[in-house]
């Protein structure tokens, strides 16, 4: 019976990044994937002839350039096409645009407020300062503050030194940033509703909190992180949809000798004498390996795939209490022509960026109120993009694919499970919001895929459909992610590791958890990591 050096559960982007690095270190690696296709939440599927959807994640923003380089993703076909702008439509028939050009951005804000137009520089300075503090931590294993190992102590010192390097005012800002709400934070810079709403959306995406909830300011930082080290083209569409990211990773993996098995759902991690020995698949087949690495989220991994008796009680309790609440849905739409938005000039670059309809923080917060009551938002927040304005490979000529990220959407509807009728009603809520701003929108629809937390969990395997495998609030970051004492990709079971977004530094199609986990595994095996580029300098 073959025994693999390492078996990775799940062919999502982090699983594949991890597998690539291990394979390139000389290990014999198998990736098992329950679906008949690979990609996890970075996937492109064709559900209606001629159209390709980015079914889950829809933009490439945070993917680490160090990983793209190490794993030769451009060589394996990955192309990222930059965004050109974005807009928030206002209820009075206008819009607020985001332009890449600094002065155009200022002039756009000046249409709404002369004051806010000139407030942006200070806002950008403060956010950039905070990002520069956090960003270098992304590509490092978080230190264990309870350990006295030299490496942990030196990492803690590094963290302390970076913190001490901030001025007194920045230190105060840092603590405030980690704890305050995005709404309060923005109030310190801006006065205009739509301008605040424009920035606030980055504070709530993927988080079961409202813009007025403490902790949401940090979530905004997480979204800005990709840009501080001069990563050119930080935001963009992957040509061919987000599946192009995982396809390039899979091709890179196979080219280095790795093996992927699709249609292989894991039933259980085999544990003997406190050590992981392999997997049992749903059909009873056993696969053996020296190491098992799970790209599944921490709840799915330890509450479904590992027997409770193998785990310490306190660890289990903390995993159960890890916040990974379903808060969003996704609607993918095939259109037979480009929708019109009368508010937006036809030559606006905003068609080639992200569009939103929530023009005040208050409206966002009311949307969250619905979620707390167990309902999807009657007036949801949409992050809407039309990738086919830049990428002709996803739809037939003249036709378009539209992706709508929808927040808020609860894991259960008023305490009961989702039904197909609920799902359709949820989809209708989204369509009707778009149609309010785009006459004739319904007539253009060729096909729709509506995904609530139910579909996201059932298909992708994300518990409650949480896109970040655990919320990005400060109590669940760094050495507390996912569980104190287990923030270094290891678990209570020997030979069982984690490499998904549940681990530091968290979610987004970034690849950092997969890479950092590989570095820890190779360290445990006393193998070299020369094939891993050091993290970019931030100077």
């Amino acid at each position, binding site marked *: 019976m073959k025994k693999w050096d390492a078996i990775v559960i799940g062919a999502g982007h982090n699983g594949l990044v991890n597998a690539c690095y291990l394979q390139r270190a000389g290990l014999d690696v198998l990736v098992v994937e329950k679906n008949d296709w690979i990609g996890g939440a970075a996937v492109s599927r064709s559900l209606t002839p001629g159209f390709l959807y980015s079914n889950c994640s829809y933009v490439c923003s945070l993917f680490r350039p160090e990983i793209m380089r190490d794993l030769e993703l451009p060589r394996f076909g990955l192309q990222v096409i930059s965004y050109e702008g974005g807009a928030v439509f206002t209820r009075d028939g206008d819009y607020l645009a985001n332009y890449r050009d600094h*002065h*155009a951005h200022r002039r756009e804000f000046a249409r709404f407020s002369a004051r806010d137009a000139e407030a942006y520089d200070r806002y950008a300075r403060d956010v950039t300062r905070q990002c520069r503090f956090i960003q270098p931590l992304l590509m490092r294993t978080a230190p264990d503050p309870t350990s006295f190992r030299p490496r942990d102590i030196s990492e803690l010192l590094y963290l302390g030194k970076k913190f001490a390097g901030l*001025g007194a005012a920045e230190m105060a800002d840092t603590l405030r940033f980690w704890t305050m709400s995005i709404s309060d934070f923005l109030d310190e810079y801006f006065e205009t509703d739509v301008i605040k709403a424009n920035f606030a959306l980055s504070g709530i995406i993927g988080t079961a909190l409202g813009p007025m909830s403490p902790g949401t300011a940090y979530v905004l930082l997480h979204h800005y992180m990709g840009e501080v080290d001069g990563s050119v083209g930080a935001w963009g569409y992957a040509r061919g949809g987000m599946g192009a990211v995982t396809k390039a990773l899979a091709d890179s993996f196979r080219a280095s000798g790795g093996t992927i098995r699709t249609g292989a759902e894991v039933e259980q991690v085999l544990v003997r004498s406190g050590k992981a020995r392999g997997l049992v698949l749903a059909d009873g087949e056993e696969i053996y390996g020296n190491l098992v690495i799970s790209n599944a989220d921490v709840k799915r991994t330890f509450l479904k795939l590992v027997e409770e008796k193998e785990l310490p009680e306190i660890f289990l309790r903390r995993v159960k209490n890890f916040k990974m609440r379903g808060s969003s849905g996704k609607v993918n739409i095939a259109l037979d022509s480009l929708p019109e938005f009368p508010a937006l000039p036809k030559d606006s670059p905003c068609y080639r960026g992200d569009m939103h309809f929530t023009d005040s923080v208050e409206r966002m917060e009311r949307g969250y109120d619905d979620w707390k009551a167990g309902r999807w938002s009657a007036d949801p927040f949409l992050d809407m993009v039309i990738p086919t304005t830049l990428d002709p490979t996803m739809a037939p000529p003249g036709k378009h694919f539209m992706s709508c990220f929808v927040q808020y959407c609860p894991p259960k509807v008023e305490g009961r499970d989702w039904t197909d009728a609920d799902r359709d009603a949820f989809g209708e809520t989204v369509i009707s919001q778009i149609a309010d701003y785009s006459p004739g929108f319904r007539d253009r629809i060729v096909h729709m895929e509506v995904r609530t937390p139910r579909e996201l969990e059932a298909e992708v395997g994300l518990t409650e459909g949480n896109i970040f495998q655990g919320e990005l609030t400060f109590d669940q970051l760094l050495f507390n992610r996912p569980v104190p004492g287990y923030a270094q990709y290891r678990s209570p079971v020997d030979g069982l590791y984690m490499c998904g977004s549940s681990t530091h530094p968290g979610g987004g199609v970034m690849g950092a958890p997969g890479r950092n986990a590989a570095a820890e595994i190779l360290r445990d095996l006393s193998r070299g990591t020369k094939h891993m580029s050091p993290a970019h300098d931030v100077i």
Partner: protein
Amino acid sequence: MPKLSSARLTAQSHFRTLRLGTPFQPRIDALMKTNDWYDWGGYRAPASLWDEELEYFAIRSQAALFDISPMVKYRIEGPDGEDFLNRVTLRDVAKLKSGRVHYTAWCDDEGYVLDDGTLFRLAPDRFRLCCQERHLPWLLDSAIGFDVSVLEETEAVAGLALQGPTSVAVLREAGFAGVERLKVFDLAEFPHEGGRVTISRTGFTGDLGYELFAPAELALSLWDRLWKAGELRGIRAIGYTALNRARLEAGLIVANADFVTAEHAIRPDRVRMPDEIGLGFMVDLEKGHFNGRRAIAQARAKGSMRHVLVGLEIEGNIPAEHAIVYHKQKKEVGLVSAAIWSPMAKRNIALASLSRPYGDTITDDLWVEIYAMRELRYERLMKRARIVPRPFIKLDRRTASPPADF
């Protein structure tokens, strides 16, 4: 949200023109031969127009016309205008009489410089503040409790600098009667085309010169009036490259070139107090409270300011732009922020920021290391640098009253 207005809708179209033209753009476009543009605060501004060398000499030998419309301008008006500006800026505005201009700066509460600029007292309770960066939120927040209005008027007001020995003659020829009576830093209003133009005897060149401000709609007729009057006085349009040489000879600093403004400094240690960039003379601790006063007073008392901005004269003739400054050719003590060979002083001059005590108590044995790229090879020079007073050139005609008719 502000009410939907036709002005808000009309303004949507700005995205089609990323670099705006100024009110003088048709005239500048007509004279532009080098197509050498740069981005000045979102405007399409000329770096040079026809010959950057000759443009420089127009400043020193003739009359040079430079479009300063992109400069950020605020109108500050109200009974508390003086008190408000005393609260915001470093110098004592009570000493600035109506019809006068002074060069000043302003700081955040930590005493770090937000910008420098010129303050025009147009009337007892009406001011114009001109500067490089944008400060509306800071000015509005500082105005709380004062009976004063602050209005951003960059686009509405066109500005021209007319600099050089024949500038007064050009203005007089253009019919601005009595302009020769303006002393340095005086301003006065003159009629033009049914409106008014404000002329001040100010500038950024260290030469005899004037600045003219008019409503944007009067810009072209004002330009034409000067151009016609200047025909026999050698009037020339110039770009920023020429002006930059002149300002360096005059020893004047530029925000975000010679120092980093506090609202733009990503790295917290890059900010500077006035004393650290040669603006300590502006700080009036006697006039009452102003933004940053306590921090500056404390830093002075503790001697905790770490930098000093100096003028350097460097041996040889190779400009030392962005060169590192050394003590005894070994210890790194600072950086040159701007440097040229001065055509007027016939010297190699520079502005540099040094770390104290260098430039403060230790001023000898300073060197700069110049990397001069020549045909794909760095010629590395270690040259002696001497701290000298600014300005690097002093022209009597700048201050002569009445100015001589060249």
